[in-house]
């Protein structure tokens, strides 16, 4: 088996529902996120993308299969993975520096060192000048930058990002996506990025994994052969449109299945 990177080996997740039944969320997902690669997971809503990310992050034990990171079986949260969540995860009583340094504080790094390092990362994510502000003084996009900085400061081998820009408006989202790529070019972490936005997935990634409706399997892995670093004009290019249409074709069928199962489409004859 591969020694570096993240290896998902036939991962299956089953939930116990409130009425005692069981619900198969993820079935037999395998894949490799090689070192320094940016991989997006895209799929219809409720398909278990976030569940899969929790498994890789060690927050959830799979019913079948497992995840191996750099040759080690994942059995709990690890020092070489860092997570960024969709919802605001800033601690509102701490300043930006205090928030960004929080992970290192838990890891036992002394105040002086962790705060100095936090200030560097804060500059990197474009929050210079906001070091001593509190989250209530920041916009939604800035709070997500704080969460990204907190994850980066842990110097993980892999960043697990669960729809980090899902709650932001379209323009902020595109802008912060570009910023994320700039930071990624500088740090070259491996990234596993959950999203439901096709353009975002194609624009950011080296590879897009398209998932099916529940119980989810990986339907297809699409290699994104757009040049790096991605230029602002990338989104207007012909290849970009071909790739997004390809993802959409795969996704359309699954989204219909998922929406049909949830009753969302019942009103249309």
């Amino acid at each position, binding site marked *: 088996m591969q020694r570096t990177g993240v290896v998902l080996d036939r991962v299956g997740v089953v939930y116990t529902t409130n009425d005692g039944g069981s619900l198969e969320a993820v079935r037999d997902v395998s894949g490799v996120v090689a070192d320094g690669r940016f991989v997006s997971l895209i799929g219809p809503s409720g398909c278990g993308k976030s569940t899969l990310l929790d498994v890789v*992050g*060690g*927050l959830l034990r799979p019913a079948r299969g497992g995840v191996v990171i750099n040759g080690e079986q994942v059995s*709990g*949260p690890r*020092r070489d*993975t*860092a*997570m960024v*969540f969709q*919802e*605001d*995860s800033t*601690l*509102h*009583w701490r300043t930006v520096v205090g928030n960004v340094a*929080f*992970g290192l*504080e*838990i*890891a036992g790094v002394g105040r002086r060192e962790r705060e100095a390092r936090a200030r560097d990362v804060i500059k990197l994510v474009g929050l210079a000048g906001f070091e001593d502000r*509190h989250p*209530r003084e920041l916009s939604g996009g800035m709070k997500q930058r704080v969460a990204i900085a907190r994850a980066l400061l842990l110097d993980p081998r892999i960043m697990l990002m669960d729809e980090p820009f899902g709650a932001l408006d379209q323009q902020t989202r595109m802008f912060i996506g570009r910023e994320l790529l700039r930071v990624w070019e500088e740090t070259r972490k491996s990234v596993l990025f959950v999203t439901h936005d096709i353009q975002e997935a194609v624009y950011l990634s080296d590879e897009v994994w398209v998932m099916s409706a529940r119980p989810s399997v990986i339907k297809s892995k699409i290699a994104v052969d757009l040049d790096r670093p991605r230029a602002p004009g990338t989104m207007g290019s012909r290849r970009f449109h071909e790739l997004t249409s390809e993802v959409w074709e795969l996704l359309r069928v699954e989204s219909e299945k998922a929406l049909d199962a949830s009753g969302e489409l019942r009103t249309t004859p």
Partner: protein
Amino acid sequence: MNRTSSGGGTLLLRPPLVRAALVLAVVAVLEAAARGGLVEPLVMPPPSVMFARLVEIVRSGPFVTDLVVTGATVATAFGLGGLVGLMIGILFWRFPFSGAVFEPYLVSMYSMPTIVFYPILLAVFGLGTKPIMIIASTMALIPVALNTMVALRAIPPTLPKLARSLNCTRLQTYRKVLAPAAVPMVVPGLVLGFIYAVIGTIAMEFILASRGLGYRTGFFYRSFEIADMYAYILVISIVAIIVNVGLNYFERRIRRDMQ
């Protein structure tokens, strides 16, 4: 003309000044009413007489004893009720089943005038500070427990998830994430608890104590020393207002720091 600009005329219309003027006006009306014979001296002596007695009483020995006794009772009742309330709130949140079973009891106790149980407590514990303490701390406990439970339940699930992903120990999770996240809602519960401890203590002293501000007020009432009774009422009101202002300031500060 724009009257809201900071001219000389608007200075007099500041809300705090208006409030102070209203108090003075009410005192003046009461004084006039009492002196003019509109109000029986047995119902209410003129405020000037009350204030004169107030000064004398505050300087006397028994007053200091009463103040210390009541203060100590309130502090103990609040300390006890606050601590048990916090523990109950945490318990109900941590073990939702216990919350589901016992929460309605707590809510109905909240709406119950606990003081009516005093004859039972009197029969069981006898005259003394015990029944006072039990009533006052029970009254303080309820808002603290309910607010603590609600505060902990309102914490977004992302925060404990973050703590877990960072490998926080249980103690770190409580100390660095859950407790500070809950504080802005726990503090108003503590403030309410304190107010209830004061009400409970004074009311119980009224009926079954031999010392304390509440007892003394009742004593003067029963011995027709109405000016002294009013003096004590004034003292209690002033102390309560000062404490309340202090607590509100504390609450605002916490909320500002913690938001």
